[in-house]
């Protein structure tokens, strides 16, 4: 190999310099130094700072700030907007989790089945689903905005119009607006669940199916007693990750409805962003962020517990 030749050269060369280099690279610190630096600067410090900020009354435009304890949190929980935001976020998140996971599961099974049976079209299906996933979030919001235009210019209303329905106010009716964001979110998010579950399907040892078949289990029985139990862990992980993802959704809704009409689609992240960058209330915004952080941490704890990641550490 090339290694040997180059090594010979090095050996005949500066022996001492090589020793020093070896000693440096035998220590993990140099390998980790760049990572530790960026993580300290752009992860650890901001986290601590977010908690600190949430305990102050800092406003972007004011010069002096003071420590106010938990005041921001109390104000937050008692404000009307907060309650509505929690409800909107919960509806958005729960619907997203159900729709992404169910659609992802169904498609993963259909594609897995198609691959094994040699059906045509499974590849095109997979590409279509994944295509939706890689479109930038802002553009997804805009695509659906154009699709849902509330006159015959919108594709959906155009089609509905030809059968005598509409025009449907997809973005100006509060309930429909929330439903629209959920559909657009599912359009994007299904791919992730699909890939995760498809990966889980490939992980099921074929001999389990063989064993079930030997025992005379039919197709449905094999699905019920082999596929589903074997898929449980990956389903759980998928659900947790989709939850985290859904709870932090921002760009798609920002472009599609911008939280409106009123506050009908104002989810957690949007609420926080507005507090911090529209109202310039950094302290209050940070308090919202810390609550969101707490939810994220809780879900992460569940993830770690279920995934039993201890072995990999």
């Amino acid at each position, binding site marked *: 190999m090339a290694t040997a030749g180059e090594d010979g050269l090095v050996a005949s060369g500066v022996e001492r310099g090589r020793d020093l280099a070896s000693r440096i690279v035998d220590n*993990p610190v140099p390998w980790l130094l760049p990572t530790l630096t960026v993580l300290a600067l752009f992860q650890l410090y901001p986290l601590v700072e977010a908690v600190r900020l949430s305990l102050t009354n800092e406003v972007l435009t004011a010069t002096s700030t003071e420590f106010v304890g938990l005041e921001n949190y109390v104000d937050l929980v008692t404000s009307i907007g907060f309650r509505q935001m929690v409800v909107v976020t919960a509806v958005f998140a729960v619907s997203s989790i159900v729709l992404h996971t169910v659609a992802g599961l169904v498609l993963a099974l259909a594609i897995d089945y198609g691959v094994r049976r040699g059906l045509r079209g499974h590849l095109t299906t997979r590409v279509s689903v994944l295509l939706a996933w890689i479109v930038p979030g802002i553009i997804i919001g805009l695509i659906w905005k154009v699709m849902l235009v509330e006159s015959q210019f919108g594709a959906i209303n155009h089609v509905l119009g030809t059968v005598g329905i509409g025009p449907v106010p997809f973005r100006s009716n509060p309930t429909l607006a929330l439903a629209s964001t959920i559909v657009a979110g599912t359009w994007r998010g299904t791919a992730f669940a699909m890939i995760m579950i498809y990966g889980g399907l490939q992980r099921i040892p074929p001999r389990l*199916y063989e064993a079930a078949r030997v025992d005379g*289990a039919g197709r449905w029985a094999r699905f019920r007693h082999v596929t589903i139990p074997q898929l449980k862990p990956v389903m759980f992980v998928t659900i947790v990750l989709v939850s985290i993802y859904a709870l932090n959704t921002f*760009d798609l809704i920002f472009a599609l409805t911008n939280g409106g009409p009123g506050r009908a689609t104002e989810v957690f992240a949007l609420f926080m962003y507005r507090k911090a960058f529209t109202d310039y209330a950094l302290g209050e915004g940070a308090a919202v962020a810390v609550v969101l952080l707490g939810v994220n941490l809780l879900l992460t704890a569940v993830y770690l517990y279920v995934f039993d990641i201890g072995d990999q550490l």
Partner: protein
Amino acid sequence: MTTGREPDTSRSSTASTNGTGDRRRSGESDTSDVGVDSPSRTDGGQTGVSGWAGERLAGTPLDGAGNALADVDVRLADAVAYGLYGVAMLFFAFPVLWIVSASVRPAGELFSFPFRFFPREVSVTAYQRVLQEGMVTWLVNSTAITIVGVGSIVAVSVPAAYAFSRFRFRGRRQLLGVVLLFQMISSIVIIVPLYSVLTSLGLVDTRAGLVLLYVGIQTPFSIWLLKGYFDTVPEELDYAAQIDGCNRLQTLRHVLLRPIAPGIAVVAIFNTVFLWSEFVIAYTVLGSERRLYTISIGVYEFQSQFGNDWRAIAAASVVGMLPLVAVFVALQRYFVKGLIKGSLKGE
């Protein structure tokens, strides 16, 4: 193949005479004993694993060749699968195709009756308008940020992943746990302090500042993914290289880089998609500087300015997603394979 098949048939015949007999084969079985039986079968089955696995990949999932019911079943299942493919393709591909079609329509017949998908003639005026509004600048900025950002992320996370995989040092597990924690925390939670960090570094309104933030945000995920790839490479390779006189850096470069290359590719692809698409951080850091707009900011600002020009918004969207779509279509097999790698031993 034939030798693999033989024990199978003998086994299934014994199974059906053994238990409740033919009723179990017709599908209305009490299948709870599958769960009871399979652990004992798993052991016994191990000897035949290779043959069976081969059969599963090559053959149909059909058992009981003589079963006429199963034939109907299969045809039905095929039909359901095809139906799902159709629905999925319509739902997932239609909006993208529609936006492309809307972007090239002449202004007059934007949406004409009756419903037509292909416009009568193609017009590029919408694209010209986006071009005038600074599209080239957005594309250049996004390309530069993506290339430099992805390169930096790989450069930072490969050594770290190597260290986590190959060194045994105190606090390693804890540190890995912290990295995972960072991966799980959405960056939107820390967006306000991130902004102040950049302010104190004097990097607000600079592309370099944004790239640094991206490195901080995406490194945890990349380290975890790459560590997984490093872990699959046997350490005997390292020892062999060491005996040949390689130090750790040389081992990484000459021996380990090749087996983990697919992992680097997956990390690069994922981060390319993320960096190209990212909006909220870019908007916060660069939003006040028109000439620094990335594609996401540019498209967003464009639509808030020309809210009713749907054709132009469609054109801007097409331009924004086209590069990613092109990269993706070229690499999609690789992409999926890389993602579920480790689980797919056969493929």
